[in-house]
């Protein structure tokens, strides 16, 4: 299986969708958050890329910003690539990004999981609600500022 080098992929993306790539490193490409849907749509539907399998979507909290990571695989071209995007600088309350649900149905549960545990809001997701935790859970546990000891994990109505 071939792995796309970050630099080559960044050039390819930038030549088709101008001003979409911020930077690239060895394996991954950093993309503008606003253009993530456009870039992923391009990567899915253009031959030569044809990333038809969304392997994994996940998010990381880097304290000053969040990072959403897309691991793409292609069964047609037998290759894989990593696309990243940084968002939520300055810890704004609800970081937002476009959902890729309409491209890959496999993003459904994974985006819900990120919303649940990391608190990143996915626009245009048809059923964006908590998946692993219950409605009304205080905070998003995978954020680094979620303090496990002091924060009660009981539902609010049961606390009193």
């Amino acid at each position, binding site marked *: *299986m071939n792995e796309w080098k970050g630099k080559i992929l960044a050039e390819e993306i930038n030549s088709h969708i101008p001003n979409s790539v911020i930077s690239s490193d060895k394996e991954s490409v950093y993309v503008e958050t606003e253009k993530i849907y456009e870039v992923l749509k391009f990567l899915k539907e253009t031959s030569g890329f044809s990333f*038809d*399998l*969304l*392997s*994994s979507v*996940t998010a*990381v*909290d880097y304290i000053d910003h969040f990072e959403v*990571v897309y*691991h793409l695989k292609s*069964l047609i071209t*037998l290759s*894989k690539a*990593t696309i990243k995007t940084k968002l939520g600088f300055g810890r704004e309350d609800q970081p937002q990004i476009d959902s890729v649900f309409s491209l*890959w*149905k*496999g*993003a*459904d*549960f*994974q985006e819900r*999981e990120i919303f649940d*545990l990391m608190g990143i809001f996915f626009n245009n997701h048809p059923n964006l609600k*908590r*998946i*692993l*935790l*219950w409605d009304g859970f205080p905070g998003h*546990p*995978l954020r680094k500022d*979620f303090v*496990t000891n002091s924060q009660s994990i009981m539902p609010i109505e049961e606390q009193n």
Partner: protein
Amino acid sequence: MSIKSEPITINLGPQHPSTHGVFRMRVTFDGETIIDVEPIFGYLHRGSEKLAEERTYTQVVTLTDRMDYVSSMLNNQGYILAVEKLSDIKPEPRGVWLRMIASELQRIASHLVAVGFLIQDLGAWGTPLTYAMREREKILQMFEMLCGARITNSYMRPGGVFMDAPQQFWENLSSFIDEFPGAVDELEKLLTSNEIIFSRTKGVAVLTPEQAINASITGPILRSTGVPWDLRKNDPYDYYDKVDFDIPIHNAGDNYSRYLLRVQEMRESLKIVKQCVDFIEPGPVRPHHDEVPFLIRPPKGDCYVAIEGSKGELGFYLVSDGSISPYRWHVRSSSLINLTLLREMLIGTLFGDLFVTFGGIDINMGEVDR
């Protein structure tokens, strides 16, 4: 004449005999026909990903055991591969062979559970399940010889496995290799040509390859739709490029082909185990403590490693900040993602097909909720 009728909504689970754990579905029926399904997760959520952020890289191995508790060895393998890639550790060959033997045996055990419980969900009163469990028991005993535990193995360490296999293990393994094909034949004789199973699973919950790939479905379910996609072949890790095996595929994409595929994969796994036993050579099973210390401090960076688990692509995303514990540990759980199309698969089928389809998908709540 028309009779006034209205749909009935039933809450199945989290306590239900055949939801394979604490899984809940809100199902709406029109008579016996399913018109809507809403899966609800989270009853076994233990926050493994958060827990890992406070544990060292070696301690996280114990958390992986508890994710998908019927295929712990595979979870160990995937996680260890991610750590090795992140911190650039070169594993010892004997350790890798042992890892492959253990994980292929675990795949057999996991598929035995899947087949057994699929037939149990069909209503067979425990007989195929006990026959499957009888064989699984032999594998679990071998695991106990290897690492002292049957389910929560914690067998693998960065750079190989924690200890070499004892002599007793090799003796048991060779007798298992001889006996297991007969046991699978017996199971197949009981089940494969059974007309009741045939009529209940054939053509139920059909998926097309496009649908499955679009929904990120991997593993036996994807292969049952006719796509020979197996990460052991397509993206080889460990020494899977050195062994010779086939990827069984089926074209129907229904529950029956999922059952048949699992049975065939068990045979293929046994083939791999046989070759591993031939290839393995004496030597150390893990690098010396000076090379790979107990406390690993991988360089800053991230990596994503995916292996072919028993239920599909099992991915581990690790982010390191140079300290002794992972900055972020994400598990791409195939059990959760394979449930994406549950609603589409079930709508239009009957109540009896609900749990059969569910058993055909073969999820494990420990991995769904993590």
